């Protein structure tokens, strides 16, 4: 029974990692951009929610409704005025710019909020749990997982049934031809990063409600997100969800054997997948 519990906890933790990863996966799928500041943007989102909660006295679940549009605008501006300038065949400029952004963000947060760890107030939600077939499952982990599934569903729906999604797919396939059809790739990219930032805010909400955070934890979140994307296969959102679950499972099982092995087990699971399926479990993109 303990093992069943461990596995259920692992799968639910995977929901959080899938939320970390979905934005990264979306942006990479559309513009082949890897944003090294992704983890730090999640942490920024958590601080933004914290500020709204503190100033307006709202519950984090409501505060996220204010934070998400703000993060959308931030993502839009970031893409339109900074990242679009460095997109191109050379992978070096976007990597170095986002790496600089990552270091700058971390230290701006340190300066603004100090290195003390923070947590979003959750009220009764933190300890609430449901009894499912003899297993006690936390409401918050369940909510996280459900949100991850919902995010993937909605993103896939946008991708395959809306005109915006058509523009995403067209720009992803061939930006030059898409621009001949009246699409402005620069704007499409800006909207895509904006949407990714909404997902980042949702990820930040659950990160902040479930555990402590401080300005330095961004890079580790980036690494988990990255592992989930690679395991799932580039460009597949369902794959990313599965990738998150695999990392979550590996970490929980590793921690059950020896608490010091938690993080290490996640990384090793990633490396094992890389040996046997270098292009991930569900590769879609060809690069």
């Amino acid at each position, binding site marked *: 029974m303990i093992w069943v519990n461990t596995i259920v906890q692992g799968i639910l933790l995977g929901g959080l990692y899938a939320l970390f990863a979905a934005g990264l996966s979306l942006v990479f799928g559309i513009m082949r951009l*890897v944003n090294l500041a992704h983890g730090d943007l999640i942490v920024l989102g958590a601080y933004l929610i914290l500020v709204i909660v503190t100033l307006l006295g709202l519950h984090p679940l409501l505060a996220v409704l204010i934070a998400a549009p703000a993060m959308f605008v931030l993502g839009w501006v970031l893409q339109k005025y900074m990242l679009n*300038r460095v997109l191109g065949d050379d992978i070096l400029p976007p990597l170095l710019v986002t790496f600089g952004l*990552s270091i*700058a963000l971390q230290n*701006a947060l340190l300066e603004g909020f100090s290195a003390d760890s923070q947590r979003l107030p959750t009220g009764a939600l933190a300890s609430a749990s449901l009894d499912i077939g003899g297993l006690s499952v936390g409401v918050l982990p369940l909510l996280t997982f459900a949100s991850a599934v919902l995010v993937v569903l909605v993103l896939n729906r946008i991708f395959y049934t809306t005109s915006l999604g058509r523009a995403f797919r067209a720009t992803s396939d061939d930006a030059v031809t898409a621009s001949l059809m009246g699409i402005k790739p620069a704007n499409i990219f800006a909207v895509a990063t904006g949407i990714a930032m909404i997902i980042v805010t949702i990820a930040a909400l659950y990160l902040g409600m479930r555990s402590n955070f401080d300005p330095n934890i961004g*890079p580790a979140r980036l690494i988990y997100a990255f*592992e989930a994307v690679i395991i799932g296969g580039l460009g597949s959102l369902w794959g990313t969800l599965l990738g998150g679950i695999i990392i979550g499972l590996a970490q929980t099982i590793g921690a059950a054997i020896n608490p010091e092995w938690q993080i290490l087990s996640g990384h090793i699971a990633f490396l094992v997948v890389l*040996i046997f399926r270098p292009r991930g479990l569900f590769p879609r993109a060809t690069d």
Partner: protein
Amino acid sequence: MSTTASYSVSTATRASTIAGALGLVLVVGLFVAPAFISRSLIQDLFFIFTMLTLAQFWNMLAGYGGLVSIGQQAFVGIGAYTLFASSILLGVDPVFAIVLGGLAGLALAVPTAFFAFRLNGAYFAIGTWVIAEVVRLLVAQWKAVGGGTGTSLPRSVRSEIVFTETIESLSGVRAAAARDILAYWLALILVISAIAGIYWLLRTKRGLALAAVRDNMEAAKSVGVDALRMKWVVFLSAAFGTGMTGALIYMQKARISPDAAFSVTDWTAYVIFIVVIGGIGTIEGPIIGVLIFFLLQSALSDYGSWYLLILGLIGIAVMLFAPRGVWGLITDKTGIQLFPIRRTLHFKNNKEEG
């Protein structure tokens, strides 16, 4: 009467010849400098030399090899830990253990490349980072060298480092200062060998192949360049050099912990900023970059996180507005190249009576 055109190929320019002569004077000056300068200046120069060595190797990877690694701290850390482990546990003299540190970096680079070369471009970057994290977490489990909290080089090891007694008796300084001078000379030898070695590599046929792979891998392959082999050569040599540098840095620090030795900020972020600000893809760039970096650090180190915030913003600004860095701006204006690798043809018209 027939005219035959003969030509010679050379890479030297007048600026490079002058720079070479001045460089030689500078090197001799730096070798005798410890006799005249203060201990704190020796330590500053040690810092500059070691950061410059790391920067040259990262530049070789990213600027010439197209391999953007964010995991070079893995090689710094493994080199440093090899020095500590071999001198504490096996009694190897730290100076010789520096070479072991390089070999450990080389040994780690083989499995790292095996995994990371499966990832392309940007994903290669984070892949190397993951491996550096794995190595850090594994080393933190190694209780014999202090586990997660780290350890110090015992006094018995430190006091018996070769050459220090000779330096002590020759210059009349105390043991700690003598160790700093020894570390300074080793760092100077390392940085000169790194620059000379990389410059030599770039001027050989392999250097041409490397540039071809970086600029267009498919085209390079089509003319018979073994792209993957070039990547291995570059990655392994960078790992060896970075491992030796890591070992030397921590021999001088004499105190190690996994978080410090595998720090992505200290050993990769700083190095990337040095290369980017100075000018990526040139040998001159990192030299300029490390001087700017050192001046910035001296000026801003009292401001804590502001310093890194500003460094990050400068890095972004350089990448956006002057992607070839400070050295790029200088060459655009003046055309000067101190380490030219471009081959130029010089024609000579020889008239021969037939």
